[in-house]
Structures are given as C-alpha cells and as structure tokens.
C-alpha cells in the first residue's frame, strides 16, 4: 500500500523561527504511527500543514496520495484531533457531534457509533462545558472518528485522561490500527507510544531524527547492568577489576553501569566474587523508548532551548 503521508523538503517558518525544516518523511499505511519530539519540535505545525490549516513556506507533501494544497480532496477520508479538543461548551456532546456530522454530510447514526466507541454513551446529553478534560478528550476522539477515516491524526489524545482512560484509549488506537486504518499519534507520553505504536517518526527542531519501525528504534537501546558493591570503599576496586576483565564500565556515584545483556549477569557476579567483593545490588536495565529518545533529542526542554538558541540572550530566555 502507498504511503499515507509523504513530505519532501517541507518547511514552515514563522518569522525568524523555522518550525518545520526541510522535513522529508514517508509514513507507511496501516498501523499506529507515533510522531514524537520535544516541545517546539514542529509536530503540531506538521499536523496543521497536513490538515490544510496552515500553508508550508516551501516543500511539498501528500496525504493519502493527494497534495496538501488541496485538502478538500482528502478531508472526507481524514479525521483529526488537533491539540486540545474544542467544542461549543453550551451545547451537549451529542449536539456538537451532530453539528459536525451535518457539516461532513454524514448519517446521524454515526454519532451514536462514535459515542459508543469512546465510552460517552449516556453522558451525551450533558453540556460539554460540564465535561472534565478527559471527557472532552474522548469527545475530541469521537469527533475525529466521525467520518470513519482511513487516516486518523491525533495530537496528544491521552491528555487529561486517568490511567484507566489511557489504557482504554491505547486499546482503541491498537484496534483502529488493526482494522486497516492508519493512526498517527503525536504524544509526549513515550511509554504509551512504545506500547501503542508500530512505527515511529521522531522530529527535533523541525528536522527528522528518525523514521522507521518501532522495533528498529528499540534495537538501538543499550542494555546494561547496574552493580553496587556491599561496601562503598570497594567500588573503585570493583571498577578496576571489571575494566581489567574487558568490561565497558561507567561509574556514577556508587553504581557501576556495565554495558551487558541480562545473560551476562552471572559472569559479572562471578567477576565481583573473584575480586573478593560482595555485591549488594545487581540490576538488569533495558533502555526504554524514553531513554533512547532522550539520548537522541536531548535531556530536557532547557537543554534543548539552550542548544537551539543562536545567541546568549536567547539561551538565557
């Protein structure tokens, strides 16, 4: 199947800021695709360009094989939740969805279907103004599902949801992805992305950092084993023994981080014993998507801002 989204040198500038910078990606059809990046990395700008809300400064892109310069050609096949869900607060959830269904010329029976999918049946006659953030989020997903879209684009769909709601939405995303749809999820919750997505697009400063299957991304993880000697005074001795044994070791405080898989744990324990040191801790650590992501994109927003700033004044801000 063709790609659902293709961008070639896609760029969007806002004055001096380049929100999306010559982005070239190919997003394959079907499955759940994670779009991740730090704050200000251009995710929302990219989504808005794909939906025809803003125009690119340069470059080209297609959605479902159609150019983003003509969003009307694919609007009926795409559903979206862009940033926070927005509705008329004085109207009920049902009235809001009916108004959107009318706008899309959809049968009103579809409103009941999507209300049921997101678990809002029974609350649909309440004014949206009385809804919690989580309920609004569900309603936003319902609105995105209205056209029974081939491509669903959700920007932070689990914002405001409680843990049970997050699990529920994750299940919903998986089931939507399994029915032949493509779901693009922009999210900061990397643990959720890791559990829900098959494919990953990572952007930073509006540039592509990674695009590929989730398995390929996770294969970049560096498994390691953390060791702690029973007595802190033995830490240096243990460090030296392991280095002498050819292990790759980093020392942080009293913990020795050894690049090794879980299968080498026993070898490490034996090496410590041979050096006459008793271990108080031996922990096998598998890097998560979050760890890999932070390694790729920088640790914190402040770090990123400083890295991106072109002047000391900007860095200070």
């Amino acid at each position, binding site marked *: 199947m063709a790609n659902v989204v293709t961008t070639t040198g896609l760029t969007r500038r806002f004055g001096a800021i380049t929100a999306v910078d010559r982005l070239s990606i190919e997003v394959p059809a079907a499955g759940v695709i994670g779009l991740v990046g730090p704050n200000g990395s251009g995710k929302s700008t990219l989504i808005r360009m794909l939906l025809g*809300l803003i125009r690119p400064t340069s470059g080209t892109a297609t959605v479902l094989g159609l150019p983003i310069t003509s969003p*009307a050609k694919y609007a009926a096949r795409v559903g*979206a939740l862009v940033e926070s869900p927005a*509705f008329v607060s004085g109207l009920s959830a049902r009235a809001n969805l009916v*108004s*959107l269904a009318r706008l899309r*010329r959809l049968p009103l029976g579809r409103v009941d279907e999507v209300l049921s999918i997101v678990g809002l049946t029974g609350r649909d006659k309440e004014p949206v103004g009385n809804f919690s953030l989580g309920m609004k989020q569900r309603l936003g997903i319902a609105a995105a599902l209205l056209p029974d879209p081939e491509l669903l684009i959700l920007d932070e769909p689990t914002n405001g949801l409680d843990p049970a709601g997050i699990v529920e939405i994750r299940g919903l995303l998986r089931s939507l992805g399994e029915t032949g749809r493509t779901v693009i999820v922009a999210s900061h919750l990397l643990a959720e992305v890791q559990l829900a997505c098959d494919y990953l697009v990572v952007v930073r400063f509006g540039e592509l950092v990674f695009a590929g299957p989730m398995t390929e991304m996770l294969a970049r993880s560096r498994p390691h084993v953390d060791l702690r000697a029973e007595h802190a005074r033995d830490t240096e001795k243990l460090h030296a023994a392991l280095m002498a044994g050819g292990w790759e070791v980093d020392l942080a405080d009293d913990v020795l981080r050894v690049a090794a898989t879980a299968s080498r744990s026993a070898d490490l324990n034996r090496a410590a014993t041979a050096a006459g040191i008793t271990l108080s801790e031996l922990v096998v650590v598998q890097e998560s998507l979050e760890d890999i992501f932070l390694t790729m994109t920088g640790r914190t927003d402040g770090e990123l801002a400083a890295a991106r700033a072109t002047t000391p004044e900007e860095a200070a801000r």
Partner: protein
Amino acid sequence: MIAIVHSELLRLRRRSLLAAWFGLTASFAIMINFVMFSTAGKGASLPPGAPGVAFPNAAVLAGPDGLVAGLAAASSMFGVVTLSLWAVAAATDYSSGLIRLLVSAQPHRWRLLIGKVVALTAVTAVATTVAMAVCLLVAAPAAGAAGISTAAWGTHPVSTIASAWLNAFAAQLAWGVLGLVIAVLSRSSTVAIAVGVGYVLVVESVVKMAIGGSADWLLGSTLNAVASGGTATLAYGSALGLALVYVAAGLVLASAVVTRRDITD
C-alpha cells in the same frame, strides 16, 4: 451548502446566545417605545447628534407609521446587539479552537463563512421579528400613557409593518456583517464588540459633530436611514445602495482574511 448552514444553525442553538440576543432585543424594544412616546408626549426632543437613537415627534408618532416607529428609532441599539452577537458567533470559533475542527472537516473556508452568514441572517430575521412583535405589543400602551392618538395606526397596517420589518432587517444585517468582519480580523469577540460599540457611540458621533451634515454616508447614519425608510438628508434608495456597498466590502474583506490566514488558534 445546506449542510453547512444546518451545521452552523445547530451551533447557534445555544440557550445563552439566543436568550441574550432575543432578550436584549425585546428589552430595547420595550424601553425605546416607552421613552420615545413619553418624550414626544411631553413635546421634548433629544439633543441633536445624540448617539444611537433618533426619535420622531408626536405628529409623526400619531401618524400611520407611529405603530412601528420604535423599530426605526432603536435601530442603532438593535444594531449594537446584532453586531455583538454576530461577533461572538464568529470570534468564538477562533477563541475556542473550534475553527480547527471546522476547517479540517470543510477545507473550503469561504463555504464555512457563507454558511455562517446565512445562518446568522436567519437568526437575525427571527430577532427582527421579536423586535417587531414587542413594538406592536407595547406601542399602543406607550402611546396611550403619553397621550398620543393611535387613531391613524389602522391605515395600511400590513404594508406599514412589512416595510418597517424589511428596513429594520436590512439595517441589522449590515450591523451584523460589521461585527463579523471585526471579529474575523481580531479573532476576539471582546475586541469586536468594543470597536463596534465604540464606533457607534463615540467615533461616528464625534465625526458627525466635526463635519456636520456631510456625514450622512457614515455607517451608522446610513443604517439609521435604511431602518427609517430614508431621512431628510439621505434618501432610502441611496441609503440602501450605500449599505450594500458597506456589506459587500465587509464580506469581501472577511472572505479574503478567512481563506488566506493560517489557523494557528
């Protein structure tokens, strides 16, 4: 297009919005009728250039048009209400972020704009009818209380009411379009209402005082002339033509902004 208008009408069916619109319209209609008849009954008149209202004298109120005179007299007040509510309806789409959903669903933005204008026009027709109904209900008691004869009011009531309604409706539409244009430009109902009301109550009055009789082409004066079926200084046809120019220019401007502007809200 019918689907877009229907969708817009569904969103306008907010109890608070309609209550404010029709409630304010009815309140102004009641107030203006009693004040207008009372003022005329005492032989008094408003100071020249008083902002927002223009009262006919007792002789005019005792004539066939007296029954519906309140509709024209309060034209600017109704106009402010219409301007405000059109502005709220247009700006809320931006301030709430709803515009993202709407444009994602219907990327032909000009169709959304036309759908909104048609839907608001329909509600404005209802509001004008509310104003007319209230005027018809309170005119006779107000005239009676002020000692103004209503004997001539029975002459051609249907044509009198129909033309008064049409004139008031035309003026309200133009006020509404003004509110819509300012709201689209500012993306804020507060700014739109402040600018609109400030213009009617302050700017136009100041300009009129500064340049005198040659200010009939100003928006407020033009729309008052439309609502009144023409004035001594601006014939009805000229006023209607000028109002159409204002409306067309406003819609062209709003359409250009809506279709070209990035949606970053």
